[in-house]
Every structure is written in C-alpha cells, then in structure tokens.
C-alpha cells in the first residue's frame, strides 16, 4: 500500500544524488547575517521604548479614566506596551512629540502623590508644544477640558492656552507663532 511512498522516499534528490558534505561556511555566514539583523531590530525596539532623561509622574483618582481623557482631549498617545497593571493600580506612559508623562494612582500608598482634586490646589504645570494649536484647542474644548487661560498670541512668540484635566492637573499647550505663519504661508500657496 505504501509502495508509492517508499519509492518517493528513495527518489529524494539528495539520496539519488548526494550533495558534497554541506559547506559549514554557508551556515556560519547566514548565522552572522541573522544575528546582525536581530541586533538591529533589538536596537530599534529599544529606541521606541526609550524614556527621556526627565519626565513627570502625575497622580489620578482613576487612572484608566484619566488615560481615556488625556488621549481624547489632549491628543496624547499611550505607549501601550509599557502599561503595568497591578492589582493595586495601573501605571501608564503617555507621549506627545518626544515628551513623556507617566500617570498612576493617587494616595498615601502611592508615593504619597495626590490628585489636585483631593488637595484642592495644584503645584505644577505640564508644558506641551503641539502642532496646530487651534485644532488642539478645539478638540480639548469639545472633550470637556476646562480652559483656564484662553487661546491667545503671546508677546514671547507663542500662541497658547491652559486647561485643566479631570483631576485638575494644569496643562499649558503652545505652538510657535513662526511655525503657524510658515504653515499658513505654505497652505496659501
């Protein structure tokens, strides 16, 4: 019954026609190429997950809700592969441009970091440079961010506004006036 399979086995090309003993150089050369490809891809993964030398950690009463708001209203992107989900709280990293903020649970058990909503005041402000400040402002307002400084051209050459997030952290968003003019010039052409 398996005659035909046996015949086919005998007909394997290298049984009929044995190759010279395999050249170990082929295997070594291909290994060298593989390892350098692996090294390169490891380097690029590392670059994508590298953190800036300095970045802040902000405390929220509900981290996942904050995460949703910050991405929706302020256009931050989560580094999803960095997220840590502990039973006692989520840690997440958000980026915009080349900047990063880390967000975590507020409270005594969490480095004694508190949300402005718990303290009744805030002690810092996050400064963010964005592309197309007018669109950014429109999106933040539509998502329910509380604007506490209106969108204005400032004498130092920025167009900026300030807004509070759900927990009352204060965010300062700006774009260089020169960049805005250059962009408008381009679109007018």
């Amino acid at each position: 019954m398996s005659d035909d399979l046996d015949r086919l086995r005998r007909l394997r090309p290298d049984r009929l026609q044995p190759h010279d003993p395999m050249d170990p150089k082929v295997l070594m050369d291909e290994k060298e190429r593989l390892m350098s490809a692996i090294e390169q891809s490891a380097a690029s993964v590392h670059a994508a997950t590298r953190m800036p030398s300095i970045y802040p950690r902000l405390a929220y009463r509900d981290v996942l809700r904050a995460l949703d708001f910050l991405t929706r209203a302020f256009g931050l992107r989560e580094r999803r592969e960095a997220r840590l989900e502990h039973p006692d709280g989520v840690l997440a990293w958000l980026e915009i441009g080349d900047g990063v903020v880390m967000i975590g649970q507020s409270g005594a058990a969490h480095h004694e970091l508190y949300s402005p909503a718990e303290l009744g005041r805030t002690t810092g402000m996050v400064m963010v440079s964005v592309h197309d400040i007018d669109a950014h402002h429109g999106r933040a307002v539509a998502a329910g961010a509380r604007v506490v400084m209106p969108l204005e051209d400032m004498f130092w050459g920025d167009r900026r506004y300030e807004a509070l997030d759900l927990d009352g952290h204060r965010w300062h968003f700006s774009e260089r006036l020169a960049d805005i003019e250059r962009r408008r010039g381009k679109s007018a052409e």
Partner: protein
Amino acid sequence: MEPGSDADIIERSLGEPAAFASLYDRHAAVLYRFLVRRIGPSAADGLLGDTFRIAFERRASFDRGHESARPWLYGIATRVLAHHRRAEARRMRAAAVLVASREAPIDPAQRAAASHDARELWPLVADAISALPVGERDALLLHVWEDLAYDEIARALGVPIGTVRSRINRARRRLRELTAQSGQQAATRSAAGRGKIES
C-alpha cells in the same frame, strides 16, 4: 547553561533577542537541507536566512505549548518557498536531467535498481510532483522527504490534520495517475534526454 527546549529558547529570546542564536544552531542544518532539496543549493542560502529572520520577527506567536520548533520552522520555510515556485519547478527538471545522466552507484548490487529509479522513474516523478497543486505538494514532500508526522505537517502548514491526510491521499492518487499516463511516453522521452546529455 543548558538551554532547554525550543519553547524555552523562544521564551527567553523575547526579552533577550540574542538567545535566538541557539534555535538557529539546532535547526539551521536540517532546514538548509530541506531548502536545497526543494530549490537547489544556490537559492537555498538566502532562503535559509529569510526563514530564520521571519521566525525571529514572529517568535512571539510561536505556540510555546510545543517543545520543538521544527514543524513551525518548516512551515515558515514552506511559505518562503511559495514565492519561488518557478525556481522550484526548474530545480525539479534540472535534477531530473542530472540524475538521468549520472553514473550508477559504486555498489554493483544496488546498481540495477538505483539506475532504474534514477533514469526511468525520477524524470516522471519530478514532472508529476511539479504538476501537483501547491498544498498537496507541500504536505506530501514534508511527509516523505522530511519525515514529518501528520500532526507536525498540520502545525507547519496551519491546517487541520484531516486536511493533511486528504491532501496526501489526493497527491498519491494524482502521482499514480500522472506517472501512469506519462509512462507510455517515458521510453521515447528518457531516450531523447540521454541523447542530449551524451552529445
């Protein structure tokens, strides 16, 4: 340090990419022979590298419930080969011509049978294999030339084991038909082939 199973190596390579080298050391020679059989030595070099680079990129999707990565690697190599079907068909034909022209084995007891296989059967079978539908050819050759079991072929090709069984059965039926059909023309064709080589 003892590296453990393939699954262990792949697991470790997720955090420590250079660990993937041990997987290459274990399986590269076998995969290389497979590629040489299917496509010839010159093209096999590059495809060996492609196979392992793809394996590295997809290593997170390897089912670490299996100890051996060999069927998975065969599957990747088979898909890499799929882009070189024409080269594979040329390889089959070239092998047929070469084999037909070759000296018989040194052992005289085997000479008669081997040279019969080589001269008469291989050209027919090579044509028949080339004419098989891709899925059937892949399953059949993994079984008879690479000695993979049906469940390993199923893992390699990502199809249910019943599909492997039916593909191989169909391939065998087709091979029998094809070799029988072209059997009549065999005498004239192989005579013509030998004539060309000897001239």
